[in-house]
């Protein structure tokens, strides 16, 4: 069953067609990589799937709900309840500790639970760094906190934008291992990247070029 269905979606900025009649679908529990060079429409796609932007044309069904027609308030709710977002720049709240950054996400979703937040940090191997501020954590550690934050509310979809773009190889492997683990647990993952290694870790790769789907590749060597 499809978790996400994109039907003939276009996004037009003035003269520029950032997305041009794109259609694709992502099944529940699937790990998909969206790839392509700069300007191919990856980020526009990420914004539309992440409920941060609306398409100019077409339909986007997330878990059966047409998010292209929803109001800003409703989109905020959908983002909070169904999607876990991970960014290239980490984006932590600078004045909150690691565990507080995770709990802040819990707070706006349901109820903050420190024990659960510490477990989430433990899962990404950072329990001992829970009381550190972002400025006291390395880039890799900050990204792992962001993964823990994205996971804490058990979202149906994890949407990651260049999640390893700012990481060294060791941290990149840690993050990819975490994604593998999430995939085994049945979480749906959409990873936007231009890094072939990250793309090849996914079950399926969708390559965008000039706002259109150029090709789709199913990874034959995918290890679940």
């Amino acid at each position, binding site marked *: 069953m499809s978790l996400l269905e994109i039907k003939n979606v276009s996004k037009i900025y003035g003269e520029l067609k950032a997305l041009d009649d794109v259609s694709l679908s992502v099944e529940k529990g699937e790990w998909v990589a969206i790839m392509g060079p700069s300007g191919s429409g990856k980020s526009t796609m990420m914004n539309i799937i992440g409920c941060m932007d609306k398409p100019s044309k077409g339909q986007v069904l997330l878990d059966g709900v047409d998010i292209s027609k929803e109001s800003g308030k409703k989109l905020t709710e959908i983002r909070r309840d169904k999607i876990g977002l991970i960014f290239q*720049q980490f984006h932590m709240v600078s004045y909150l500790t690691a565990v507080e950054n995770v709990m802040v996400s819990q707070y706006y979703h349901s109820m903050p639970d420190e024990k659960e937040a510490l477990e989430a940090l433990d899962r990404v191997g950072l329990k001992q760094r829970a009381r550190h501020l972002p400025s006291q954590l390395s880039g890799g550690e900050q990204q792992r906190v962001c993964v823990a934050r994205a996971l804490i509310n058990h979202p149906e979809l994890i949407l990651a934008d260049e999640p390893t773009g700012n990481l060294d190889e060791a941290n990149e492997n840690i993050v990819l291992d975490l994604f593998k683990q999430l995939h085994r647990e049945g979480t749906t993952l959409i990873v936007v990247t231009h890094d072939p290694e990250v793309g090849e870790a996914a079950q399926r790769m969708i390559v965008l070029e000039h706002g259109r789907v150029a090709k789709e590749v199913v990874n034959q060597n995918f290890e679940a």
Partner: protein
Amino acid sequence: MSISKLPLRNILRHPGRTTAIAILVAVLSFSLLSGSILVYSLNSGLRSLENRLGADIIVLPDSARSKVNIDNLYLQGTTGYYYMSTAKQEEITKRDGIAAASGQVFLATLRADCCSMPVQVIGFDPETDFTVQPWIAERAKNDLSLNEVVVGSKVSAGVGESLRIYGISCRVAARLDATGTGLDTAVYCTGETMAVLLNAAREMNHELKITTDPSKVVSAVYLRVDPAFSVEDVANDINIHVRKVQAVKTRSVISGVSDSLGGVASTIKALIIGVWALSFLLLAAAFMLLGGERKREYAVLRVIGVSRKRLSGIALKEALFVSVLGGLIGIALSLLIVLNFHSLIEKALALPFLLPSGRNIMLFAVSTLVCVCIAGPLSAMVSALKLSRADTGIILREGV
């Protein structure tokens, strides 16, 4: 930790930023509270002066003009002594249009030592007086007997204590409430006591030029004008027909004070408005700058699922916290300075100055806090709204 305390966490983790904004808010509350107390004190000083003067006309001997500034007599408590004979008082009293008349005798004490200022002793006639007794009656239960005095609020002698004036020991029967004028440094007694003091002063070689019997002199005659006559006409009539005296309309003394008070009060009000306009703009600019710096943080909160409304709420709550902090600092500083330096302010302004009561000061302080608690978040409103409407996706992708 409770995440509902998110705004507080932000404030505490950025002490520099918080201090800078709190100082601006403190300037707002300091200027508002100090200005309000000053304007209020000046107005109540004027009101108390009006209440105390009681008479329509004061007639002084011509010699008074060379000794004191008549307009200033009741404001600064300029100690003066000048005399005319009681015959002159009778002559004045006989003029047309006078409903009541009473003489007063003035005597200035010498500076006893370095630590006491000379005081003005005012002797009134209990039989005819209508200006002093009404407010002495508020404080003293019985009539004053020989060698008993009533003191102004700034004379350092308590009720029941003795005050030595030219070697005569006078019992303090009562202390008057403050008026914020020169009347606060005066000592009041009956004409009988005054005669004793005048004799003692003359014996101590005080430069008193009284050739006649001390019980037969007056320094000023206070007149109440018959409502059927105009004060102006009666004063002119005295000035024309009674030689070597000067009739001064108290209204003109008050309106002179009122004019200068109006000038000072409008300067203070203009200053308050100026300070507020400038501080408000600076605050708004500060919140704007901060907003730019915090765009990313707000975008993260948006992504986590915080609604626009809630995000504006967080920003406004932060502004409110800082406003309360700055407001309280400004209020504390204002009370510390104004209440401690009120005598200096009074001296510098040279106008009647009567501080509000403790209850009123509290009211002013609370109102000031309410004002800054509205102004602070209001100045943050624009930046909060702008931030909550910013394009989350773009901000986060650009990593601004």
